[in-house]
């Protein structure tokens, strides 16, 4: 099957407008005859549910949490990009488009990214109209901050809780429609399969997580907005329940899975403290604006610190290696996420790590405290040579900017980051890969759409900060409502889809068989036991740096672990009750398949680009080497019974508007 991305003709800045002018529309009276299922209620799913319901479609929305307000979009801290140019600093739709394509290391689809940039400004208008309290200046107008990888200030924010505020905005729009009966909300439900009738997605099988009941739900189209698959690593900044099941089930039913190896490892997370660790906590990228990253220059000092014989503050300036400033003098501590993460790993692998596990580097605010302190003393006409006073003023300034993050750090690590430098280490944060979609956001299964982090389309091989929120809301509020109408237009006379069709019966039986198998398995080990093992393989061999040997080993090890899991996993409790272990077993079963495809994709991509770093493809000084001649394509994998048999399809990426150059931050 040849992939057709369905990119409209015409100049890039006119494609979306022209597309909207010529698609099929559904008459308002007919929309009420059409049902749409949406799985996931984060920024993408929640905004899509609200908008489609407003338009008049009957929406059935599903989330595994106890309320749509808890989707993991809520945890996004920093902000949301939009080409508003409120700062008058030269921003434009084209610049946002350009930065996103470049930041993605030239592995995203131009037309989709341009559309994203076009609708970005509307998102801010929409959210403000909904009552989202974005940060404002004293004049009452909206404030902006700047983020990595750009030269303008285009990031809108709500303190360190931007994701929360935007999600609650989408949730409020959903609530209005739930109150009107246009959205039927299914909380604590998990989608466990897709139902295809005559080649089109027509429903899902879901499990009610409270009663354990397996339910059939039909619709004229199914939208997956279930987020990313970062939890394949066990430890990540994702929520505990974040899972790939909906995305993986549609993959097994025919939706191609694109670029699974593109994973974002975020450089500033709190390091692992021990074997009990259940998840990792992100510290906002904004900290790198003022913090300086370093490790000891000598191995002896690093060892002494690990063993508790020395403290970081014992080391003088000359005994410290500010390795980002050393390697990348022009961008310094503000290099993009992928570059900063790899540099931390390189130092720790060389033995310079500073916590007991040897996997941590320092993020130091001492010089920021000095700089701000002197600045404040000057502003207030106080004595800038009084060290105590300067420290006090500087500490206050840092507290104003990052107080909540410092407090969060102290609660977790039990160390005061004003006194001793923070310890940080990279952690899995976001997955750029996902279900392949065309320009309409439709997967290779007609009638099955994929939006937000669960699709692959906008971030290429590396996502810029503050762009995930933008994409989720763009897809849900402004893109899908057009494209799904075009698809549904021929279905207006179809009437309700019966859930008694044999396809529903069969899908339900398959789901029930899988669930019963787990309940009756009576193995020796818990689900977490296997999930942790999978995470270790992924992190060690398919993590920040990969090589062919390691990837080949990982593929074998994951397949073996998957067999062992199905043979030996132990799931207590029953099928027809609230059973959290059973929920986990179903999710981990999918991760054990996805992980293998992930490694296979990483092995086939013989280049380094964005979040995908192959050790064989680097320059002499350790920088990533892209191969545009052979790998400027989207790798879309077709399921053929098991991950090892997956068939590769290529969508060539054509760059008409952006010139491909080597990303350099030196």
């Amino acid at each position, binding site marked *: 099957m040849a992939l057709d991305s369905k990119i409209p003709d015409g100049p890039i800045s006119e494609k979306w407008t022209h597309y909207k002018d010529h698609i099929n529309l559904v008459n308002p009276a007919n929309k009420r005859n059409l049902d749409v299922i949406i799985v996931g209620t984060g920024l993408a799913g929640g905004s899509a549910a*609200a908008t489609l319901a407003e338009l008049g479609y009957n929406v059935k929305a599903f989330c595994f949490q106890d309320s*749509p307000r808890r989707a993991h979009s809520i945890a996004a801290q920093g902000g949301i990009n939009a080409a508003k140019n*409120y700062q008058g600093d030269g921003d434009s739709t084209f610049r946002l488009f350009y930065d996103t394509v470049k930041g993605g290391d030239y592995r995203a689809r131009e037309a989709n990214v341009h559309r994203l940039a076009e609708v970005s400004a509307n998102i801010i208008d929409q959210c403000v109209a*909904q009552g989202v309290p974005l940060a404002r200046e004293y004049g009452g107008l909206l404030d902006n901050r700047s983020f990595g990888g750009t030269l303008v200030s285009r990031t809108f924010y709500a303190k360190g809780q931007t994701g929360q505020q935007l999600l609650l905005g989408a949730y409020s729009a959903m*609530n*209005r429609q739930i109150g009107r009966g246009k959205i039927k909300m299914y*909380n604590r439900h998990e989608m466990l399969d897709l139902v295809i009738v005559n080649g089109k997605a027509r429903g899902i099988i879901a499990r009610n997580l409270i009663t354990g009941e397996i339910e059939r739900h039909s619709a004229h189209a199914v939208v997956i907005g279930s987020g990313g698959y970062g939890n394949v690593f066990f430890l990540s900044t994702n929520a505990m329940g974040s899972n790939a099941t909906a995305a993986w089930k549609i993959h097994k039913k025919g939706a191609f899975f694109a670029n699974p190896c593109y994973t974002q490892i975020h450089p500033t997370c709190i390091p692992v403290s021990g074997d*009990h660790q259940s998840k990792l906590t992100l510290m906002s990228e904004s900290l790198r604006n003022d913090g300086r990253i370093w490790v000891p220059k000598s191995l002896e000092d690093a060892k002494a610190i690990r063993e508790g014989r020395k403290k970081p503050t014992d080391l003088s300036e000359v005994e410290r290696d500010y390795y980002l400033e050393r390697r990348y003098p022009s961008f310094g501590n503000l290099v993009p996420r992928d570059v900063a993460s790899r540099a931390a790993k390189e130092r720790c692998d060389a033995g310079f790590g500073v916590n007991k596990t040897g996997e941590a580097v320092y993020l130091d605010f001492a010089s920021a405290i000095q700089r701000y302190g002197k600045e404040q003393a000057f502003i207030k006409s106080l004595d800038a040579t009084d060290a105590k006073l300067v420290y006090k003023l500087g500490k206050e300034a840092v507290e104003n900017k990052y107080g909540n993050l410092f407090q969060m750090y102290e609660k977790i690590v039990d160390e005061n980051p004003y006194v001793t430098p923070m310890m940080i280490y990279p952690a899995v944060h976001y997955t750029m890969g996902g279900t392949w979609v065309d320009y309409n956001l439709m997967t290779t299964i007609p009638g099955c759409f994929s939006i937000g982090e669960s699709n692959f389309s906008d971030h290429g091989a590396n996502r810029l900060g503050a762009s995930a929120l933008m994409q989720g809301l763009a897809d849900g509020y402004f893109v899908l409502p057009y494209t799904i109408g075009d698809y549904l237009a021929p279905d207006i006379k179809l009437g309700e889809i019966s859930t008694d069709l044999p396809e529903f019966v069969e899908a339900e039986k398959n789901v029930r068989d899988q669930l019963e198998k787990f309940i009756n398995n009576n193995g020796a080990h818990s689900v977490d036991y296997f999930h942790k093992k999978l995470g270790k393989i992924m992190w060690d061999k398919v993590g920040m740096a990969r090589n062919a040997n390691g990837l080949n080993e990982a593929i074998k090890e994951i397949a073996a672990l998957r067999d062992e899991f199905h043979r030996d996993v132990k799931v207590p409790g029953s099928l027809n009750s609230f059973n959290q*272990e059973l929920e986990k077993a179903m999710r981990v079963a999918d991760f054990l398949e996805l992980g293998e495809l992930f490694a296979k994709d990483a092995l086939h991509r013989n280049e380094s680009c964005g979040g995908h770093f192959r050790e064989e493809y680097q320059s002499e000084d350790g920088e990533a080497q892209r191969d545009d001649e052979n790998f400027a394509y989207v790798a879309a994998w077709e399921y053929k019974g098991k991950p090892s048999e997956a068939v590769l399809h290529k969508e060539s990426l054509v760059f008409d508007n952006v010139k491909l150059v080597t990303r350099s931050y030196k």
Partner: protein
Amino acid sequence: MKLTLKIWRQYSAKDAGKMVDYPLDGVEPDMSFLEMLDVLNEHLINRGEDPVAFDHDCREGICGMCSLYINGEAHGPDRGITTCQLHMRMFKDGDTIFIEPFRAKAFPVIKDLVVDRSSFDRIQHAGGFISVNTSGNTIDANTIPINKKDADDAFDAATCIGCGACVASCKNASAMLFVAAKVSQFALLPQGRVEATDRVLNMVAQMDQEGFGNCTNTGACEVECPKGISLENIARMNREYLAASLKG
């Protein structure tokens, strides 16, 4: 550390529950409270017993999914945090820890420590929104300047995570702080003023219908709120409610 856990076990909403003792050894101070429960559950699963059900998701204090009434306090003994941010260094070797679900008539138990908080959602359905379509055909975001103080106060109210600690901490199981946070957020913003009258009346009516108790100004909710939502919001809601009632 070695601990004795006394945990509420209840198989389902229909069954009677009881406190059950679980000794637990090898607890480290760096563990979070929920990681300590993970360790307990791993032991229970390996022994062939039913693990303790508890709600949790983001484990970084923002999703509002985790709950737990620990030694008589919602989200445990520390301040300004959710249970997932509580660390075992707050306890000491040999401690006995009581772990119960959030208790309120409007929060029925689903299993063990998991409760049904959908009453909170239904209050939001009654008015927790501004009636604006998501078509994108809105005015430019900077058309109406909003003074920074109002914008900041609206933000502070909007940081509510809907966990229900306020209800669990209140001797009347009142949801006033939760409802007042949303009413305040919109009442403070020009966009929200348009529907302010109906909003406060409808949300309060739904709150009463769900079986939450009345507010007697004890202030326990504010003390236990992980996000520090201020009692001022309740005062603001009372003013809004009075004004709306007189209008209505």
